[in-house]
């Protein structure tokens, strides 16, 4: 987990595998440096493959930005758990967090690149989703 206080849209990476999530975050950092708040989470609460809501909530907190947070997920449970986490956020934050329908690694790099230019949340989400559409 890591973050920055750039004011750009934050990026959260959620994978069933902590290694995939961390690796994708490494790729994002290489691309955009510390220009965007970034956090990753992966694995179930026992450390096995899976995702967990508490970990996702922590990652959102770590990558929090007033501009909002874009979440990139891999497979179904990561998406469902991320949407659950978003619904559990305080109301003033809930509307500023989106789950992107994009591949987790490529989407994270593209979303972060868009964010690093100061784009708003909707544009960050769109860029991740359109690149591979």
């Amino acid at each position: 987990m890591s973050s920055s206080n750039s004011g750009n849209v934050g990026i959260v990476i959620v994978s069933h595998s902590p290694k995939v999530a961390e690796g994708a975050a490494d790729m994002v950092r290489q691309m955009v440096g510390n220009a965007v708040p970034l956090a990753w989470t992966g694995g179930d609460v026992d450390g096995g493959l899976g995702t967990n809501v508490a970990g996702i909530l922590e990652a959102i907190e770590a990558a929090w930005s007033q501009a909002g947070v874009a979440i990139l997920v891999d497979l179904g449970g990561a998406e469902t758990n991320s949407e659950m986490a978003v619904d559990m956020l305080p109301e003033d934050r809930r509307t500023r967090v989106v789950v992107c329908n994009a591949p987790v690694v490529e989407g994270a790099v593209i979303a972060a690149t868009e964010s690093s230019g100061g784009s708003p949340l909707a544009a960050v989400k769109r860029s991740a989703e359109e690149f591979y559409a």
Partner: protein
Amino acid sequence: MSLDREAREKLVRALAHAVITHADELTSLDQAIGDGDHGLNMKRGFAAVLAALPGLADKPLPEMLKTIGMTLVMKVGGASGPLVGTFFMELGKALSETPGRAEFVAAADKAIAAVKARGRSDAGQKTLLDVLVPVQAVLAEGGDAAAIAAEASRAADRTIPMLAIRGRASFLGERSIGHMDPGSRSTALLINAAVATLVSEANS
């Protein structure tokens, strides 16, 4: 329906026992068409629910159901955590401490609608909704405990020839046909455990 503290604890233990004793079977079902973690995930979730006893059963029924739901959301790990957890949480939100059948039917309707929204799914896609929706229909029509339990088991069986449209099994396309949906099986187990406990309470 009024459940005293002892009955609430029995209900929690019966639900957890049903899932935990069938964890290997649920995992086998999930290995056939999913990622093989359903039994382990549900077992972890219900072990955490059990660990919340005896305090959990001190809570009034609505609060107890909400707490079970939140525990499953936080502990299960797969998509089934938010799905099954949402069902319990919404049921708890909609029920009073002493619900009658009409109130229970209305609450279950709300809870099922919330599960559909959470999974962006509906009956017919080889998910737990293929048990929840037909069982709810029997409940709403006034079916007795035996009819409700029988429908839960039959509904899970009816997922065997279904093509998966949602969830990990949908990646298999037509190869998902011929296997029971693990989420439907665990949901049927939970319903049967709840019915058995409520019947024994009503008769005691």
